[in-house]
C-alpha cells in the first residue's frame, strides 16, 4: 500500500507553522495560465500600427489643409484681381465640373493611400524596428 505523503506536519505542535509555510508556498507560486508566447510581439505591432496611423493621418490632414488653403487663396486672388478672366474660365470649366471633381477625388485617394494606408499597412512588421 502506498504510504500517504503529507504536505504539512501532521502532529499537533508542528501544524501551525507548516500551514503557514504551505500557504506562502502556494500563494507565491505562479499557477495561473500564462499569456500566449507572441503576446508581446502582437501588442507591440498593434501599438506601432496605431501610432503610425495617428501620425500619418495627422500629417495627411495638414497636407490637405495646406493644399486647400493654397487653392482657395489662388481662387480668391484670381476672382478679385481679374473678374473677366475668372468668368471666362468659369464658362470653360463649368461643363467639365464632374471631371474636375472626379480627378480631385481620385488624386485625393491616391494621396491618402500613399500617405496613410501604405505606411499603416507596412508598419509593425519588422521585429525590433523603430517607428519614429
Amino acid at each position, binding site marked *: 500500500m502506498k504510504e*500517504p*505523503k*503529507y*504536505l*504539512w506536519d*501532521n502532529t499537533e505542535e508542528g*501544524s501551525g507553522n507548516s*500551514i*503557514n509555510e*504551505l*500557504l*506562502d508556498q*502556494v*500563494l*507565491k*507560486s*505562479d*499557477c*495561473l*495560465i*500564462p*499569456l*500566449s508566447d507572441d*503576446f*508581446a*510581439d502582437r*501588442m*507591440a*505591432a*498593434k*501599438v*506601432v500600427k*496605431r*501610432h503610425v496611423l495617428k501620425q500619418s493621418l495627422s500629417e495627411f490632414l495638414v497636407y490637405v489643409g495646406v493644399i486647400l488653403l493654397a487653392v482657395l487663396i489662388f481662387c480668391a486672388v484670381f476672382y478679385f484681381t481679374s473678374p473677366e478672366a475668372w468668368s471666362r474660365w468659369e464658362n470653360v470649366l463649368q461643363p467639365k465640373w464632374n471631371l474636375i471633381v472626379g480627378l480631385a477625388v481620385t488624386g485625393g485617394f491616391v494621396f491618402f493611400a500613399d500617405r496613410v494606408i501604405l505606411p499603416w499597412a507596412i508598419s*509593425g512588421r*519588422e*521585429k*525590433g*524596428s*523603430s*517607428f*519614429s
Partner: protein
Amino acid sequence: MTDKELVLQVRNGNQHACRFLVAKYQGLVNHMVRRILLRNDVAEDICQDVFMKVFSRLSAFRGDAKLSTWIATIAYHTSLTELNRIKGRKETSAEMLPSASLPVSYEPVHVFETEELKKILLAMIESLPVHYRTILTLFYLEEFSYREIEQVTGLPEGTVKSYLYRARFLLKGKLEKIQQNERAEIFVG
C-alpha cells in the same frame, strides 16, 4: 534600462521598447486580470485592453509612482469594470463584501499529492472576495508593499493589512479543517 528610460523610449516610438515593456509587465497584468475576473476565456483580451490603455495614457505618466504600480492600477480598474460588466452591478457589489465563510466545500480525504492540494488552495483563493484575491496576488505573487497596494486599489493601508490578514485567516481555517478531517479519517480507517 530604468522605467523612466523605458517610458521615454516608448514615447519616442521605439517598437523594441514597446515589446520590452509588454514582456516585462505581462505577468503582472495577467495575474491581476485572471485573479479578478476568474475567466480564462476573456483574460487575454482584457490584458490587451490594459496594455492599449497603458500605451495611450503613457504621456500622462509623470513618474511619481513606480511604473509597475501605475500599470497595476490600470489593470485593476479595467478588470473591475469588466467584472461589473460581466456580472452586473448588483452581483458584483455583493461579491465584493468580505464573506465570513468560504462557499466551496472540499473533500478532505486522499489529499496527499502536492498538485492536488495546490489546486484546492487555488480554488479557495478564487472563492475569496475580489479585494482579497487582488491583495493576495499583489502582496505574495508580485511582492508589492502595503503602500503600493494602497496606490493600486485605493484602499487605505490599514484596510489592506486587515484584508490580507483575514484572507490568510480564512485560507488557514479551511486548511486546518481539511487537516483535522484527514486525521479523523486515518484514525477511523
